[in-house]
């Protein structure tokens, strides 16, 4: 029967349109209600189309007046003469800070999810899960405030230490004197922010891992870790990937936390401990106040790029989930 509570994998419950049809012509109430709900769906589509359309239109206006290459310019001066702005630094900053965030957050999120689903004493597990749920709801501006006031001074020491011992790696070499308002700190802060979100999704997946495969591993004489390696992780692999993508989407588009912590500069600097850098969202928030109409269009152009990047990331996540559905469906 399809009427069971449907986990995501189950097909949606069959609709009941045929019942209405069997009773002859539809009532006027039915028609109005259908019209309303279909209208809402269409409204959503229109909004999406409008977002894509308007952003592209304004962006095209801006880019056509850009005297330099929009993709490779290390400068943001749309109101200058000649107008010159490009997203190279923003692409770099956004990607680097997000990568740092992912490298830190994903393994820890897997650890916490395993802790909740398989290691924690049962009495501890559900309050912790609840707490993680709540933490996922903390507004990003508060993470930003905490990051700027508390994390930045705290990470100064770590920065010095990394610079002292790992300067030979080049990326950890610190070449300017600024405090830790750099991409590295932003990455750590983003990691802390997206940790609850990723953890929540992975935990759900791990909790769904089939008991019978875990028991199969146990009955072969596997230790708890071996059970997890043999049955839980393989089962959850695509879930882990899509959860990470979700987190990545959040990290890429995060505005306020980055705007508060980073001291922006338009230099492309591969030393991630150097103060400075920028991300798409941060740049929009920072430059918005001083922008005239054309300056805003330029910012919109950069926003469009961000929009496309997050679309691609989310699309990839969804494709992975969809593939997994097919896969598990075939084996059901």
């Amino acid at each position, binding site marked *: 029967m399809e009427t069971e509570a449907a986990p995501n994998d189950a097909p949606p419950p069959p609709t009941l349109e045929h019942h209405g049809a069997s009773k002859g012509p539809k009532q006027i109430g039915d028609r109005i209600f259908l019209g309303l709900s279909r209208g809402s769906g269409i409204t959503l589509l229109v909004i999406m189309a409008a977002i894509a359309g308007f952003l592209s239109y304004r962006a095209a206006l801006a880019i056509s007046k850009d005297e330099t290459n929009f993709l490779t310019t290390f400068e943001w001066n749309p109101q200058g003469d000649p107008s010159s702005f490009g997203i190279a630094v923003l692409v770099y900053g956004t990607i680097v800070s997000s990568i740092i965030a992912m490298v830190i957050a994903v393994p820890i999120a897997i650890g916490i999810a395993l802790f909740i689903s398989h290691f924690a004493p*049962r009495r501890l597990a559900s309050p912790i899960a609840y707490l993680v749920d709540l933490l996922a709801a903390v507004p990003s501006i508060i993470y930003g405030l905490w990051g700027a006031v508390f994390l930045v001074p705290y990470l100064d020491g770590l920065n010095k230490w990394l610079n002292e011992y790992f300067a030979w790696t080049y990326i950890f070499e610190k070449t300017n004197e600024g405090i830790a308002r750099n991409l590295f700190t932003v990455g750590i802060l983003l990691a802390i922010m997206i940790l609850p979100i990723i953890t929540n999704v992975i935990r759900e997946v791990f909790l769904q891992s*089939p008991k*019978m*495969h875990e*028991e*199969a*591993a*146990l*009955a*072969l*004489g*596997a*230790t708890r870790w*071996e059970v997890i390696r*043999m*049955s839980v992780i*393989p*089962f959850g*692999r695509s879930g882990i990937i899509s959860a990470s993508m979700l987190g990545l989407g959040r990290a890429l588009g995060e505005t306020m936390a980055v705007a508060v912590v980073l001291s922006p500069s338009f230099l492309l600097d591969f030393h991630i401990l150097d103060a400075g850098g920028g991300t798409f969202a941060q740049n929009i928030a920072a430059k918005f106040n001083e922008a005239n109409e054309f300056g805003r269009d330029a910012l919109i152009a950069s926003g469009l790029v961000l929009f496309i990047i997050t679309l691609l990331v989310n699309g990839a996540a969804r494709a992975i989930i969809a593939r997994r559905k097919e896969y*598990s469906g075939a*084996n059901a």
Partner: protein
Amino acid sequence: MAKRIDVSGLTAFYGNHRAIDDISMTVEPRSVTAFIGPSGCGKSTFLRTLNRMHEVTPGGRVEGKVLLDDENLYGANVDPVAVRRTVGMVFQRPNPFPTMSIFDNVAAGLRLNGKYRKNELAHVVEKSLKGANLWNEVKDRLNKPGSGLSGGQQQRLCIARAIAVEPDVLLMDEPCSALDPISTLAIEDLIGELKERFTIVIVTHNMQQAARVSDRTAFFNLSAVGQPGKLIEIDETERIFANPSVQATEDYISGRFG
């Protein structure tokens, strides 16, 4: 090397609920012992105490002794992981690891227990699949996922996986209840062959099956719902089915309840 199991005074709990109460019995090596009884009588729970799988269930707890030859499974320094390695188990629903190939499924237990050379591993896998009467059906597609097999083949794959590590005892928890009659027959034939090498304990809902495959049969019952399950009697299968010594056994076998 098949081993004898001696259970004495075994009681199992789920939290505070007593699931089975004070069970004592002996399971002979190189024989098939069947557990029968109505639903909820604790026969599966009891089976799971024999390889310390019961305590995996949240709240699961065991009192009493289970001697495997002369060693108590619940002794102070006994590692449950080593117990489960020595006492294999086949479950109600076939559960090959979905992400592993047929070969890897059979090799899974071996890989846990140490390093094998490639040809050594291939040899054991082939031997186990032959032992499970599955080799001829899968030898051409060892690298395909195990989940692509039919239900009966999957269950024999699980048996191959269990015997690959050469356990002393093989526990089977209603291994045919999810299978069609022909696959069931194949498994029953296989059980007949496996008892030459292993001590086999099988839980079954199907009394004809117990009569067909087992040498000895134990009947479990519970006095009322919510009461703990008890062992009513254990005897030669022929006697249990022809002339049981307890009235309840006869009532159950002749279909008056359960």
